């Protein structure tokens, strides 16, 4: 079970959080202009990598904030946590 560093509250047990899948999936600016395939990709298709994964978590039993986590999906090591506004960090640290 992870220790997750909430960017707002500090290190807390994983059981205070929940994960909501891949992050940095932007909703199309104008959904009406994308075709069914592009819309389907936005809704459902994910990179699901064996390696570095960027994902969104919420601190449900804490500050209720959403934030990003950069984690390795084989070692399960969390490399970094960062707030929603921040840009995606590089894929370097493995």
């Amino acid at each position, binding site marked *: 079970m992870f220790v997750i560093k909430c960017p707002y509250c500090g290190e807390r047990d994983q059981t205070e959080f929940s994960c909501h899948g891949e992050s940095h999936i932007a909703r199309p600016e104008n959904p009406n202009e994308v075709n069914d395939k592009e819309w389907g990709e936005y809704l459902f298709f994910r990179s699901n990598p064996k390696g570095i994964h960027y994902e969104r978590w919420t601190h449900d039993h804490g500050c209720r904030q959403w934030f990003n986590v950069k984690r390795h999906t084989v070692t399960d090591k969390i490399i970094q946590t960062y707030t*929603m506004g921040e840009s995606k960090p590089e894929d370097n640290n493995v």
Partner: protein
Amino acid sequence: MFNRNRLISGGSIDRNKPINFKFNGQTFKGYEGDTLASALLANDVHLIGRSFKYHRPRGILTSGSEEPNALVQLNKESRTEPNARATEIELYEGLEASSQNCWPSVKYDIGALNNLFSRILPAGFYYKTFMWPPSAWMFYEYFIRRAAGLGEAPKEKNPDRYEQKFFYCDVMVVGAGVTGLTAALAAARSGANVLIVDEKPEMGGYLLSSKAKINNMDAKEWIKETLSELNSLSNVTVLNRTTATGYYDYNYITALQKVTNHIENSNSKLPRERFWRIRSKEVILAQGAFERPLVFSGNDRPGIMMASAAQVFISQYGVLPGNSITLFTNNDHAYTVAVEAISKGAKVVVIDLRSNVSNEITKLCEQNKIETYNSHAVTSTHGSKKVNAITLQELSNDKQSFVGDAVTINTDLLLMSGGWNPAVQLFSQSRGKLKYDDQISSFIPDVLVDNQYVIGTNNGNFNLKQSLIDSLNAGISAAKETGNKKDIEEFISEASEPQEFTTSEVVPYVLGSKPVTHGSKHFIDFQNDVTASDIFLAQREGYISVEHTKRYTTTGMATDQGKTSNVNALAIMSHIQKKPVGEVGHTTFRPPYVPQTFGAMAGRNVDQFFDPQRLTAVHQWHKDNGAVFEDVGQWKRPYFYPKNKENMKDAVNRECLAARNSVGILDASTLGKIDIQGPDAAKFLNLIYTNAWSKLEIGACRYGLMCNEHGMVFDDGVTTRIGENHYHMTTTSGGAARVMSWLEEFLQTEWLDMKVYCTSVTEQWTVLSICGPKSRELLASLTDENIDNTNLPYMRMRPIKVCGIEARVFRISFTGELSFEINVPARYGKFVWDKVMEAGKQYKITPYGTETMHVLRAEKGFIIVGQDTDGSATPSDLNMDWIVSKKKEDFLGKRSFVRSDTARENRKHLVGLLVNDKKTVLPEGSHIVDEANKKPPMKMSGHITSSYHSPTLGYPIAMAMLKNGKNRHGEIVLIPLMNGKVIEATVTDSVFYDKEGARQND
């Protein structure tokens, strides 16, 4: 009742405290400090139970938690526990235990017939047979199931309590042998917060039973001193009887502490066990090692025991388990027990597999008059319920054949030692990587995980002094890592054991009188009855990966999870596959380290605390007034209020009619409520709901439908504009948390610039919904305000005082009747409810529950999200195109409506159904067919989502999702029931009552 095998003195038992206990119905005596195993051995009881498959007699193999054989059924009735290890059960007055897996008794067991047929029951035999006739497996299985299993589950509820505890520390030390104690003391003196746990009641580990010296003191003395210092330090927590069971990511360790289950605890307020969830910054593993059995023919009889176990029984419990002892070994260390046993008056013969033993050992044997046979093997053992003799024979130089004649000697205890396996189970669970070490012929830690240390024999280091110095350094270093840098003195100067463990070659199996594959019983996994020949068979049949061998033969899958068997199995595989053990690999070690009680992990999360019951402010009233409750999520909601032994149907009938004809009252407090504020609130609602929100006046209410991004309806409710930038949203009771999280998701991740804040206010308000033609009259009597249709029209909210309490009153209706939802702060909820009930007496005000609510709304054709929808319906499917804005550029779900399948014409649509016989209430969930066959299969075209007898209309009504239903009004469809009957119904509009809405609008 005297203890035949008890020594006159010695051991940590309290000879002033004799204890009576029962085993298999017979009463025995032991002492405080005994384990069940030591007490039975003291009484010369060796036959404890029967093995899993062949039902062979089995005794006590070890003295610890790795015991595979001596499992017993402990205690009786509600406190009985199957598969308890006799080696771990501390004796207490009145203890009762019995043998398992045998009938009628452990001595004469019918199941032992399996042993006779063992020749046709090799590993995996069941995969090859029981296939004829094809349907007969369950017949065979019946008998197999009854033969399998070990002990029995209790048949009554557990009367004991379990506690759980989260614990944080800087340094956790697992194992309180001398290395663990050293590390803990070093870390503690350095200033760290330290936790040290050990599974035994008495800390000190194996050296409690030895003649080792530390700092020129007896090891026992040193242990005592060290423990007393640790116990005195406020930054140290010392837990005995506590087993670290699981080692998970980020140094999360679970541990199970026996609090009272080593004593009779029926009157204790303390729990039986306490389950610790530990998060430690640094972890030091000091779990020691397990002695490895030797694989020889007939190595499983009662009276055959690990050499180290005998050492423990003699030294710690003052029990000499045999008088004419044979020690079978391949290493020096095991000679310790020979010396010890001789000093207690036993006769000892040593059979050493090695051709050459050191001069030191030779001298030791001469000094102690130990008879030795070097380069000899035990080729078979004798005795039916207990070993009484063994046959030995000299091995050739290459150990591949025998020289000389077989000799049979009498013995009443055969000890074996095949070397030592570090206890790497926890380490491996932590994702640490192992490597095979040729020196000790076993696996040792190789790559450690973060913030972890492994010390002593646990790390494959069998030199006592070096181990202790490593431990000291580990303790200091771990403390430093956590920021505790106090300099401390090195406190280990000298340490030595009489016989150090040096090296041992793992012996795949010992030559026996019969070839190992020819029906010889060279046991590897004692409990599961896996023999060396089973491993041979698995290799022959292609099950050569370690996992295949394990799963095919079941070796290592017994309750000791391979602690005694794994390395030996791998050695045989290595021998057959002709490659080094390290290349054969090893199976994955999985938690828990020892079996862990379900109840302890469940903790308090059962019975009344299984899940919170969410209760409204009026709950007690509902209870007092006989409500039957319905579980809606975690909420308890009144389902209906039966009066005078009414059944549900009658109660609902009465409640419905009261609401339609006079006035009914519903506790609607469970509805989700969200306070939305900010200049962009309207813009936000426009994106969240399918309809338009820009032009809603202050004080006006509007119904809204929420879709997910797939375009499917997922919640609904009424939202009211409270002020300029202020809205009050309601959601379904079950969907409140989901909606709140949905709103926050988009505000926090997608529309970061939007100026909106959402705050849950569900419990702030108690909501009393009064409905029916008399509801206005009733409310008017409780307020000074004018609430006529002009001042408080339909779909409007007004803040007024009700019963003197500031309230928000909403004219909204889910029943189709004139209706007022009175919202008051929860603290006044009960008060206002009582007042309304009192004032309502003259109108025969009737409380109604969720079922009546469902009927009333169904008469009006209102949907219930989650009942009439299932996550696959769009607003259009529900005939709710009217609520989907055509003008808005965007809202959540919109884009998905135009996908090819979602835009399809002939999707399933919501319709009403009226049964043609005017009396059958269709089962909710039954399906509609266009053509009914005599028997299934039949092609389905929809299903009934809601179905009730309508008390208002006097006949049944139903709602259904029907393929192309929009275009089928007036058609007759068929509903086949389970009993074969087929019901006819006519497709209609889904609004059955007051289509114009005159009643609610009035």
